[in-house]
C-alpha cells in the first residue's frame, strides 16, 4: 500500500460512482474499502486524516471527503466529478425506491430484507470504528477523549455542534501544546 496511485478523471468518477452505488446504510465502509484497499488512491493514514476533516467540517461527511479527494487529484473538475459520481446513482435509485415504496411499503419481504440489511450495515460501521481505534496511540489521553466524545453524543445526547465546538479545539490544543506524548 506504499505506492500511491493517481487516478485519471474517468477512474475518479467511476470510483466514486461505485462507492455511492454500494454504500447501503452509510457509505464510509465502502469508501474505505475502495479508496484504500482496492484502488490504493489513499493510504490508511490519509484516509483517516480526510475522514477526520470531513467529520469536523459542516455538511455531509462523505461529500466533503469526495471534494477533498477529487480536488487533490484534479482540482475543481476533480471535485465536481467525484461528487457527481458519488451522488448520481444513489439519487436516481432513491427516487425510484421512494416511488415504489409508496406502493409496497407493507409487503413483508421488503421489511425482512431491511431487517437483515440494517444490522449488517451497522456492523460494517462498527468494523470501521475498530480499524480507526486500532490506530489511536496507546496512551490515556486519546482514549479518554474518544470515550468523552462517545458519551457526550450517544449517552447524553448533546447536540453535535456543541460537542465539536468544545472537544475539537480541546483535542487540537492539547496536541499542539504537547507534541510529544499526550495525544
Amino acid at each position, binding site marked *: 500500500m506504499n505506492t500511491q496511485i493517481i487516478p485519471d478523471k474517468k477512474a475518479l468518477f467511476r470510483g466514486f460512482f461505485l462507492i*455511492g452505488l*454500494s*454504500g*447501503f446504510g*452509510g457509505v464510509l465502509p465502502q469508501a474505505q*474499502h475502495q479508496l484504500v*484497499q482496492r484502488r490504493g488512491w489513499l493510504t490508511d493514514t490519509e484516509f*483517516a*486524516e*480526510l475522514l*477526520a476533516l470531513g*467529520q*469536523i*467540517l*459542516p455538511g*455531509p*461527511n462523505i*461529500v*466533503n471527503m469526495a*471534494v*477533498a479527494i477529487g*480536488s*487533490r487529484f484534479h482540482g475543481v473538475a476533480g*471535485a465536481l466529478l467525484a*461528487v457527481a459520481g458519488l451522488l448520481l446513482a*444513489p*439519487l436516481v435509485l432513491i427516487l425510484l*425506491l421512494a416511488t415504489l*415504496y409508496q406502493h409496497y*411499503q407493507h409487503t413483508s419481504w421488503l421489511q425482512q*430484507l*431491511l431487517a*437483515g*440489511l*440494517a*444490522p*449488517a*450495515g*451497522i*456492523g*460494517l*460501521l*462498527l*468494523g*470501521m470504528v475498530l480499524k480507526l481505534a486500532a490506530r*489511536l496511540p496507546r496512551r490515556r489521553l486519546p482514549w479518554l477523549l*474518544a470515550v468523552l*466524545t*462517545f458519551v*457526550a*453524543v450517544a449517552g447524553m445526547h448533546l447536540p*453535535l*455542534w456543541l460537542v*465539536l465546538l468544545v472537544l*475539537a479545539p480541546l*483535542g*487540537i*490544543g492539547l496536541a499542539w501544546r504537547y*507534541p510529544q506524548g499526550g*495525544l
Partner: protein
Amino acid sequence: MLLFLFLMFVQFSLLAVGGANAIVPELHRLVVTELHWMSGQEFAALFALAQAAPGPNVLVVSLIGWKVAGVPGAIVSLAGICLPSSLLSFWVARWWQRSRGSPLTIAINKGLAPLTVGLIAAGVAMMAASHPPSWAAGLLLASCALLSWRTRLNPLWLLAAGAAAGLGGLV
C-alpha cells in the same frame, strides 16, 4: 418553489456539523410542524428509506425536495445542501495539501483522531439502539464488524449475507 427549496437547504448546509443526520431534528420541525409539507409518519418513512437505500444519508434531503416539487425539487435540494459545505471543504483541502506536515496540521490530525472514533462509535450505538434488540441481529452485527475489521472482504458480501438472513427469516 425551487428557489425556496434551494435557499432553505443552503442554510442547512453549514448547520450539518458531523454529518447530515445532525440536521434531521431541525428538518423535522421545519418540514412537519411549521410548513406542513408532510406528516410526521411520512417524514419518518422517508428518513428510514434514505438510511436503508444505497448512498449517503444526505439523500433524505432530496426525498423532501421530491415530495414537494418532484425530481427538479430533489436535485435542487441536494445541490443546495452540498454547495456551501463543499466550497468550504474545497478551500480547506487545498490549504491542507499545501501545509501538510506543518506542526498545525499534525496537531489537528492528532487532536481530531480520537473525536472521529468517538463520533462514529456514537452513531453506531444510536443506530443499534433504534432497532428492537434480538440475539440474531446482534450476532449478525458482531460478525459483520469482526469480518470487516479483520479481513479485506468487500463490504457488499457482508451486506448480501445480511439481506439473505433477513429474507430467510433468520433476523
